């Protein structure tokens, strides 16, 4: 079974804003350079460890994980990543990320119905 382990702390100890244009270590860059890169290798499991950084802003979380859906990643894949998240220090991150992914899925489905 192929598993890719992602430690956010390896990306940055200081996760930044939503977009790269607003500052370094953005959620946008984390999604593109780390998450989408990992997904493209089609592993059976991706485990993202959120511990070890100095804290997260919600914008980073929304853009990094909710953005997966906007980038066309399958709902099941994104939800599976949320399900496998590790967050010992702050378990609320898992709830929040799952919420963002579900909202993005809902938004995508709504757009698909309207078009």
């Amino acid at each position, binding site marked *: 079974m192929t598993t890719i382990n992602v430690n956010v702390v390896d990306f940055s100890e200081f996760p930044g804003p*939503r977009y790269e244009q607003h*500052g370094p270590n953005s959620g946008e860059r984390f999604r593109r350079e780390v998450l989408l890169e990992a997904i493209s290798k089609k592993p059976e499991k991706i485990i993202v460890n959120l511990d070890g950084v100095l804290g997260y*802003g*919600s*914008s980073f979380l929304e853009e990094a994980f909710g953005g997966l859906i906007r980038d066309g990643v399958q709902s099941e894949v994104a939800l599976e990543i949320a399900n496998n998240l590790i967050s010992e220090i702050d378990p*609320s991150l*898992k709830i929040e990320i799952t919420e963002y992914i579900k909202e993005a899925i809902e938004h995508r489905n709504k757009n698909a119905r309207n078009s």
Partner: protein
Amino acid sequence: MPETPNPEELIKWVGWLLSLVLGLIGIGVTFSVLYIRIRHAEKLAQRKERHDAIDNALRLLTDFEDKSLDYWTAKDSKYTKAHIITAQQRLSFSIKQLSRITASNFPDKEMAEIRKSATLDMETKRRPISANSERILRLSISTSKMQNLSLFAKNGKS
């Protein structure tokens, strides 16, 4: 024919036996009292640890709320995004400690709501915002909800 015990000897033996029994009872009572006192001291120490953890978490919750409100509503806030996120991280850590001490669940929904109301789009949204705005209302409600959780309740028994 069996020898009749000397009454003086008998009284002496009964006296010894009584002393022995009373001595054993005394030792038993001493150990019981000691055990109760140790248990009581342990309970007091646990209660103090719990109350200290509650005080610390409440202090950090207030600190987080104050900084967030200032960040969003003050014209020239001295607080930056880093201050808010660090305050949130400290709060989260202290509540995690409190949850461990009280063997309670971490209030993850409440914490997620608090972070979301304070930090979502904090780099891009226009500031200052009105104290009556939806974000400020959400922030106040979410911190109040957190504060009202049974996790933060102090009582004399526990």
